[in-house]
């Protein structure tokens, strides 16, 4: 590798004036040596990258394909294409396997907790970012600390706290707990965001006689919209995909959320051995998040990667 690199400055110099085209490369003699190295590496990179892309996509495609197959061929020949498209798997999963109920429960829980998380999270973050008061730092670090502690440790007493309040196995109980556990990251993210917003607008509003809360809701929240969207999508994915909290706090079969419902179906051998219906349910639960990801790709990546880079 090293030896071919020695005449490095040539192509960059001669090329600067020439418009960049891929086709032109093959006719250039002097750069031949470099080019082959670049090509070999390029082919190698693409080869490896494509293999991993296939490894990522294949299981997902396999699940979609399986959701349209008859029960017999799922086990007989897992890799064959479905002989006929069994759309009935989907309708059976939706109605008989209670996927519609689980879906509704998930939408209610995630909808409620998403709104609650954004409202409460932005209120706390705004105060922590913009106001000086004794205990500000302490409260901030109290919130942030929640990001690095193992949730499981708190789950045992949490179960009894929720139980004593009569909130076990209820949608609103789950909503409150989801909000509480989403606050650390939300407060962390939004505090940083509110600090970057200019102070002059808010001060002007305040001088004009707007109250603190009016300034917040009518001026700061609209200005913080990009941040709220990023952290909102992050929380949507996290709450939609939550498994551990509902498993512990929500054991009533009627109140199950999607992830729980699916796992329960699988444990009971697919209701009445209906594996194809189970796969249909699995794909059903995957679709909303995949769709949200594709639409909001940039914000999702921003929100998720911000979590790792404190």
């Amino acid at each position, binding site marked *: 590798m090293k030896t071919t690199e020695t005449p490095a400055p040539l192509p960059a110099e001669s090329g600067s004036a020439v418009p960049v085209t891929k086709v032109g490369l093959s006719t250039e003699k002097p750069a031949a040596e470099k080019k082959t190295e670049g090509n070999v590496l390029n082919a190698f990179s693409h080869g490896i990258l494509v293999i991993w892309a296939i490894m990522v996509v294949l299981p997902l495609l396999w699940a979609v394909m399986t959701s349209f197959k008859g029960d017999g061929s799922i086990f007989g020949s897992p890799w064959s294409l479905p002989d006929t498209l069994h759309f009935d798997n989907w309708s059976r999963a939706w109605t008989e396997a209670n996927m519609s109920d689980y879906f509704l429960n998930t939408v209610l829980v995630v909808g409620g907790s998403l709104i609650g998380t954004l409202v409460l999270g932005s209120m706390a973050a705004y105060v922590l970012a913009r106001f000086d008061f004794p205990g500000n730092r302490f409260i901030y670090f109290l919130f942030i600390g929640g990001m690095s502690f193992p949730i499981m440790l708190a789950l045992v007493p949490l179960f009894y706290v929720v139980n004593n309040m009569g909130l076990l196995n209820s949608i609103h109980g789950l909503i409150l707990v989801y909000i509480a556990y989403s606050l650390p990251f939300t407060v962390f993210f939004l505090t940083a965001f509110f600090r970057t917003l200019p102070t002059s607008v808010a001060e002007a509003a305040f001088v004009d006689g707007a109250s603190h809360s009016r300034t917040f809701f009518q001026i700061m929240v609209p200005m913080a919209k990009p941040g709220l969207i990023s952290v909102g999508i992050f929380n949507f994915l996290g709450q939609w995909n939550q*498994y551990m909290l509902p498993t512990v706090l929500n054991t009533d079969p009627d109140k199950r959320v999607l992830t729980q419902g699916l796992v329960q179906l699988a444990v009971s051998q697919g209701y009445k051995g209906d594996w194809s219906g189970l796969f249909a349910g699995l794909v059903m639960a995957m679709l909303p998040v995949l769709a949200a990801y594709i639409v909001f790709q940039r914000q999702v990546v921003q929100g998720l990667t911000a979590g790792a880079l404190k």
Partner: protein
Amino acid sequence: MQHGKYRFIVGFLALPLGLYALFVVWPFIQSIYYSFTDWTGLSPEFKMVGLDNYRRMLDDDIFWKSLQHSLMFAVALPLVTISLALFFAFMINVGGRRRKGGPVISGVRGSSFYKIVYFFPQVLSIAIVALLFAFAYNPDSGAINSFFRGVGLDGLQPLWLGDPDLALWCVMAVLVWSTVGFFVVLFSAGMASIPADLYEAALLDGAGRAATFFRITLPLLWDTVQSGWVYMGILALGAESFAVVQIMTTGPGGPDYSTTVMVLYVYQKAFRDGQAAYATTIGVALLVVTLAFAAVVMRLGRRERLEY
């Protein structure tokens, strides 16, 4: 500005802080207290037993097994995932064909496509991913073994999750599959911000791609790698390993506790065996392991900060 300031602050903080204190902070404090009692969780009565639970834990073979497995999740799993992700990210950002007149270092074509696809599993629920792979691993009719049969490897039909020696690796492979994309995107963002003239200078000096990676890319990316490792380790010690082990392995916990992790053991002791106090004791151990893990990674990884 002072008028009504404190009333406003209290009004805005009361609800979020109250919820957080009630459902997150208070249970944390309680659990440490409960670890010194003989509370079953079934009845409200309990008495203090001092360090009994901790003594019992030290004699508990399953606890040691679960600790060992959890450490694998915190150390081996991120090591594999992060190395793979660095490899992919480097190829995506630096492995491209050199175009005439273009930058010395360039990404492969379609780099954003790879990043989008690789990230897919990250947005799926870990529970759904675990279910999907539990089917794929099925020894008789699962996708993997039928694939082996299809390509003529009839002799090679592992039991996967049913084999005590293989089960833990199978479960960890699923987490690698689902997390690599996240780190590829994370590291790509870091690599994109490394100035191109650094690469140019290195290439002029005759450095190959491997040398470029170890001398330039990795040192400049080190902070990101480190915080990524801590982030993944904490997840792998907690929620993620709970879901994969509980859903995928039989028992759950695998044949002969071969996949039991600490977080699953806490769950089973508390909600299956009615030993809430003992469960919180293991939870405290989990907290200690998590904090120690983060401290060790930060300490080992400490080097001079590079400015560029």
